[in-house]
């Protein structure tokens, strides 16, 4: 199975003076069980696209096929509950969605909605509380007593607890400290490795280089490119022209090249850069 978008367009506030194109004739096909990064500068339509994966927004025209569902402009919202269980979305700043009196109850909210019994939901909630790196001792605290970073983790646990086949994340690590960010991304990567699809919106090119198998680049609501990280990071001028950048390792390699030390093929990650440098100096001795 795959995730297929066919000529999907979306218009915000149609037939008003505020009409605006959110998506413009977007077509692509993604393989399941991959880690997919979605990049593009501010306002390029990433969040709009993300909300189509679980049909929070329905296309104004075009068609989407994923997880055994077909979504068209006329699909009824009430037919979409099973889709929402299989395809989930973590919004930007998800800590705003917390509402229950305890952390555990909040994480169990999603599983309960999707038909797990109270006992099962509680078990899942405890499991995911630990997975996102929080101590069991906070399970019965109010989510509003936690720090911002802890709230973020609770919110993410609340979405991952019903273990959707496709997990969509809109800048989940924005505003986290570097260690927290690393831990979160490792968690998503491990989730993908266990046979799920992860789609990640990010402004951090290192995350793309470190984790993604596949990259979608958006601009002005259109899909600019759909390719692999090594392809997309090849052309520095092209990236800069579209408001993007290179991962730190590639940046570093580019500067080395300018100073007479070309490393080929271009390293994307710090590990690759290190290996290439070691090989170069060993070979050069």
């Amino acid at each position, binding site marked *: 199975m795959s995730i297929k978008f066919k000529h999907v367009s979306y218009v915000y506030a149609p037939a008003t003076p*505020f009409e605006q194109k959110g998506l413009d004739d977007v077509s692509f096909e993604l393989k399941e069980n991959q880690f997919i990064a979605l990049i593009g500068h501010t306002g390029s339509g990433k969040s709009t696209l993300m909300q189509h994966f679980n049909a*929070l927004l329905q296309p104004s025209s075009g068609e989407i096929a994923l997880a055994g569902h077909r979504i068209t402009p006329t699909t009824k919202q009430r037919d979409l*509950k099973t889709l929402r269980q299989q395809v989930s979305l973590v919004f930007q700043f998800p800590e*705003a969605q917390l*509402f229950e009196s305890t952390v555990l109850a909040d994480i169990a*909210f999603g599983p309960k909605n*999707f038909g797990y019994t109270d006992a099962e939901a509680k078990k899942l909630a405890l499991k995911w509380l630990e997975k996102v790196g929080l101590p069991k001792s906070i399970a019965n605290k109010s989510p509003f007593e936690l720090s911002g970073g802890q709230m973020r983790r609770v919110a993410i646990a*609340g979405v991952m607890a019903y273990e959707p086949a496709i997990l969509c994340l809109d800048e989940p690590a924005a505003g986290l400290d570097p260690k927290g960010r690393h831990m979160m991304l490792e968690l998503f990567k491990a989730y993908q490795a266990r046979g799920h699809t992860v789609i990640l919106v990010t402004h951090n090119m290192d995350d793309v280089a470190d984790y993604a198998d596949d990259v979608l680049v958006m601009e002005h609501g259109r899909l600019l490119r759909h390719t692999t990280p090594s392809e997309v990071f090849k052309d520095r001028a092209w990236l800069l022209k579209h408001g993007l950048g290179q991962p730190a390792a590639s940046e570093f390699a580019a500067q080395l090249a300018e100073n007479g030390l070309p490393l080929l093929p271009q390293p994307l990650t710090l590990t690759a850069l290190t290996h290439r440098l070691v090989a170069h100096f060993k070979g050069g001795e």
Partner: protein
Amino acid sequence: MTKIIIGRYIPGSALIYKFDARGKLLVTFLFVFAIFLANNWPTYLVATLYTGLAIMGTGLRAHVFWDGVKPMVLLILFTSALQLFFSTGGTVYFHWWGLWLTSTGIVNAIFIFLRFTLIILISTVMTVTTQPLAISDAMEWLLTPLKWVGVPVAQLALVMSIALRFVPTLFDETLKIMNAQKARGADFNSGGLIKRSKAIAPLIIPLFISSLEIAVDLATAMEARGYQGTSGRTRYRVLSWQKYDLLNAGAFVVLLILLKVLG
């Protein structure tokens, strides 16, 4: 920032948009009284023409104004119907128990219908061509006399402006939280009353919390920048009379004279 429509303001560039908000608000207010001067066909014709010119002056599509009238249609028809069947006088066409259909009744019904519709249309012209913040500023100006009897008009106006400013923010926030809970399987649109009121908790609680956070942040930011109450404050948005406002005033004076002369 999304650009949702607050109030009913619709951006445009017609001359009427340049009229001062105070003038527009005052004229709208006085129009409600002026329309009572109309009492025969010529005067109603003049009032209708005045309204028609105002509507054309906005350069907006007709359905905008229909949207303004729509919510009131039942009330207007009901009131007109009362006039139609309960007035006596003139030629009697039909009489059944307490109901009369007379020539006076028909004319009165039409007049009442026009009076209501014209008032709604004129206020719609005002609300679609004036920014809510400008309306709030204009209200403050109109309410100035109340200051002399100790009503904190400036503070009230500030509260209103702040509320208006945060309508789109809270609207965005509501939409976002609703979508986030829907993604977690919440269902806001089905089930009976009890199920629905329970379903609202995941929406209301986060919204309440973020509104409080916004309010506290705003209060802190205002105090940090030296806000101490409103006395002696100058303003950022200054309303100023322009030459266009003579047109607004002139047209209204002409209307009054014609109503008086023909009435």
